[in-house]
């Protein structure tokens, strides 16, 4: 065997010059263009980029799968020396069975709902490793333990729906590991998980690598998740790799303007200020000649828009090899640090109290149950004019319940909600005065489902204007003004939602809310479904609009970094109970409630550029609040037995409106 051949077999995966296109009508639309990457044994490679950059296509190409309608137009993918895209079905199956484990994006959908978890793992073991029944079952329990699932011998007999999202993800990993693969391909493995769960799953990947010496390819849009697990990164834009190299170096000193733009689009938990991001979106640039990124690039010059796209060239003077496809490499490297690309927080006058909630309790239970308490209990909250109050918590913390109650879509069990000092908001929307309804508008998380697909977006914005009594010319003029406010063109009004990009759709959602002429905007996870560069621009838009219109926001989010970028005050919820509230910078400088600290630590660990070892928490979120005592006690590291489980914790005032609801005195808690 020649030296070169040995070199090839040592590589676990080798992608060379891979191009994939799908057929749309009569045209071939390229998805991947000339992608070359290699992965050695035990290495972890991240593939990052925004939606539409081709990263998922690349992930499925790695397991020899092409979506219907797409075909390989050049290049190859070799796993352990074998070409997975050229081989016949039997070879590819053997290869997948023996070499590759694949963890798909949504584990909840990839597990068979009617089969016990153990049976699903056993099925794989019997097929791939030819184990007999009892050996396979024992191995299944061992695998479930390996992915750090609690009580694996009980869990094997559970059904997928009995597990939480994070646990389902771990089962999917166990399934992928069952064939003892050399390569694990992870497609967006933590998207949709809560921040604490996410940190735990990421920590699992790191430790599996260390234990099994397995190679990882992780596809993600989340730069933070990637830097916590993978030491190598490839940044993709419009089907090409634009930068590749060591993750740490690439995130510290990006060598391509797109990497730089991505990094400066991510809201950071470690520092205040709104991310500046980059202009435009990928869809606008796909057909540009020369470098595809040039139209959005702050470094672009005339030569960038001519000729062939720039090739990957090595970045000089670094220990690990790094490549960037940019003609302006020296200028990019010499540019000021991307961390400085923020809009610093403005100091603002806080207006009159707008929304006042006191003692809000919402109970979903049909009949009284002595073991649990109401979903939302005793929540006090105030939003002033021109102020952004963030409501933070994991899924199931009651954030959306509170928002829906305020919006009048659900009736509170008890408590007071008033708007502007007078109007009673405990009534449902249909019973409110139209003037009151108008003052309160909703913006939703999912831009796609928040717009009627069969009505033009102009129509969606006209409707609230009509309800305000505007007709004809006046309404159209008002619509165009609102469109301008949110950065859309009047011409967009005639389009249907599917003809707009995700960011534009979210802008329409905001425009619809503005058209109502609100004083208070309920924004429910409005940026969490968006790509980071779009996210940054929507955040800036929200920030501008509140100054222009003196809007108060109740900003609901699970993302502490986004909250720090936009909010003035933050309220932390756990299982429908407020555990901490205060001005944003005070909360972020601590001391904190143990739950807030858990959230912050988890979020901080997955900040892009953080290289500290991830310490995953084994915690799984709980689903039902207890009837008495502190809701967080089961997960709390500083629990006081006999106190926390019986008595509701008292408020501790830390000054300037920062308060914490905990039995343990803050000074003591902060030290542990």
């Amino acid at each position, binding site marked *: 065997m020649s030296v070169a051949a040995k070199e090839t077999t040592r590589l676990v995966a080798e992608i060379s010059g891979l191009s994939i296109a799908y057929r749309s009508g009569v045209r071939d639309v390229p998805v991947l263009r000339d992608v070359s990457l290699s992965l050695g044994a035990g290495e972890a490679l991240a593939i990052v980029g925004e939606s539409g950059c081709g990263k998922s296509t690349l992930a499925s190409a790695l397991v020899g799968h092409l979506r219907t309608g797409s075909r390989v137009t050049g290049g190859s993918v070799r796993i352990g020396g074998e070409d997975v895209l050229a081989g016949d079905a039997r070879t590819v199956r053997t290869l997948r069975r023996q070499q590759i484990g694949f963890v798909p994006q949504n584990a909840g959908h990839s597990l068979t709902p009617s089969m016990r978890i153990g049976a699903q793992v056993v099925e794989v073991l019997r097929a791939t490793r030819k184990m007999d029944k009892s050996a396979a079952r024992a191995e299944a329990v061992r695998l479930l333990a390996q992915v750090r699932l609690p009580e694996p011998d009980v869990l094997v007999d559970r059904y997928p729906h009995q597990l939480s999202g994070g646990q389902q993800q771990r089962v999917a990993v166990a399934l992928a590991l069952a064939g003892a693969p050399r390569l694990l391909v992870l497609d967006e493995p933590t998207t949709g998980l809560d921040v604490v769960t996410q940190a735990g799953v990421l920590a699992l990947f790191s430790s599996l690598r260390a234990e099994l010496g397995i190679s990882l390819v992780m596809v993600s849009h989340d730069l933070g998740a990637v830097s916590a697990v993978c030491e190598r990164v490839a940044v993709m834009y419009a089907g090409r790799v634009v930068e590749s190299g060591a993750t740490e170096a690439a995130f510290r000193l990006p060598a391509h303007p797109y990497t730089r733009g991505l990094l400066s689009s991510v809201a950071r938990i470690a520092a205040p200020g709104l991310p500046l991001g980059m202009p435009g979106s990928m869809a606008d640039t796909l057909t540009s000649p020369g470098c595809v990124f040039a139209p959005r690039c702050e470094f672009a010059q005339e030569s960038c828009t001519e000729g062939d796209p720039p090739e990957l060239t090595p970045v000089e003077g670094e220990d690990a090899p790094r490549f960037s496809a940019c003609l302006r490499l020296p200028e990019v490297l010499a540019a000021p640090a991307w961390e400085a690309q923020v809009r610093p927080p403005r100091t603002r006058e806080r207006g009159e109290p707008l929304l006042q909630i006191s003692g809000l309790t919402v109970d979903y239970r049909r009949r009284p149950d002595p073991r649990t308490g109401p979903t939302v209990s005793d929540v006090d909250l105030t939003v002033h004019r021109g102020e952004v109050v963030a409501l933070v918590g994991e899924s199931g913390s009651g954030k959306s319940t509170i928002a829906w109650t305020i*919006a009048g*879509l659900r009736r509170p069990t008890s408590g007071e909600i008033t708007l502007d000092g007078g109007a009673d908001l405990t009534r449902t929307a249909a019973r409110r005065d139209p003037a009151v309804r108008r003052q309160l508008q909703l913006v939703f998380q999912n831009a796609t489902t928040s717009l009627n*697909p069969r009505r033009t977006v102009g129509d969606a914005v006209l409707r609230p204007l009509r309800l305000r009594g505007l007709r004809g010319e006046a309404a159209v003029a008002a619509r165009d003004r609102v469109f301008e406010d949110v950065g859309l063109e009047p011409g967009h009004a005639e389009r249907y939602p*599917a*003809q707009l990009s995700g960011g534009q759709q979210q802008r329409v959602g905001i425009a619809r809310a503005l058209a109502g002429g609100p004083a208070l905007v309920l924004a429910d996870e409005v940026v969490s479904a968006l790509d980071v560069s779009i996210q940054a621009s929507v955040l800036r838009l929200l920030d501008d609009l509140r100054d222009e219109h003196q809007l108060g926001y109740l900003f609901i989010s699970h993302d502490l970094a986004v909250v720090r970028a936009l909010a003035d005050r933050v309220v932390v919820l756990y299982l429908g109970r407020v555990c901490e509230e205060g001005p944003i910078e005070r909360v972020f400088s601590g001391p904190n409630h143990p739950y807030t600290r858990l959230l912050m630590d988890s979020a901080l660990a997955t900040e892009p550029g953080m290289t500290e070892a991830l310490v995953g928490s084994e915690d799984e979120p709980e689903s039902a609040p207890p009837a008495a005592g502190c809701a967080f006690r089961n997960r709390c590291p500083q629990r006081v037995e006999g106190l926390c489980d019986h008595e509701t914790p008292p408020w501790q005032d830390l000054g300037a409106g920062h308060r914490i609801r905990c039995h343990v005195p803050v000074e003591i808690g902060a030290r542990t």
Partner: protein
Amino acid sequence: MTNLALRVRPRRLSLPARPSLLIGLFLVGLNVVVALAAPLLAPYSPTQPNALDAIEGSSSAHWLGTDQLGRDVLSRVLYGGRYAMLISLSAALLTVVLGTVLGCLTAYRRGWFDEVLMRLLDSVLSVPAILALLVVVTALGSGASVIILASTVVYCPALIRVVRAAALSIVGLDYVTAARARGEGFWPIMVREIWPNILDVVLVEFAMRASWITLLVSSLSFLGFGANPPTPDWGLMVSENRSLLTVVPLATIAPIVALATLIVGLNLAADGIAKARGIDRITGGLR
């Protein structure tokens, strides 16, 4: 430039040319036109007996021959769709309108209203359609309005269920929530938000129900409970002439073929609408 391009796009439902859809619409259209223009097209009176020419095969005078009373089969076939189509189309229309409103309402209201209505519909659904119709016709007579109302009652429950299921997936979406939050009532929400999104289901249901009711009405006529002799009606014609199948086969086959074109046409149209609505630009517009 871009503005111009946007303006020329059709705003309303556009059905791309699909062979199955076009054939279906053509067959249905043909049947409707023939039924409307029957007085102009028919060479003889459809009801006038002529004992001298009874039971004749195909000839230049009678293209499709004559039946046992000497009536021209071609004329009877041309007229024969009128009764069935009038009843089935109006019954289908009534079913669809009533079913859509009730289906949307029950999906929107949920709670006890949904519960009561659904159990009520279950009880109607548990009776076979033809049996229920026979009972109604026996009790109330076989007038057109009785049959229309009876088939509406018989077919509405299934439609309400289908529409309810389609609407349920819509009422939970954020744009409906947004409408409710701005205080809109049931009618504007149904007309503006729900209806356009379940239109595909409704259109398909309409075409399907129309073909089922046509079959049902023809079955009734065949059994002697629908159209009364000497009304020219396909179902009745089959019933009258089946004993002569070996002597003048065309008298039985011609109305069957005519009925088949209508049913197949309605089904093809339903299929085509479903497919066309599924891939139109609203759901995949960006491509």
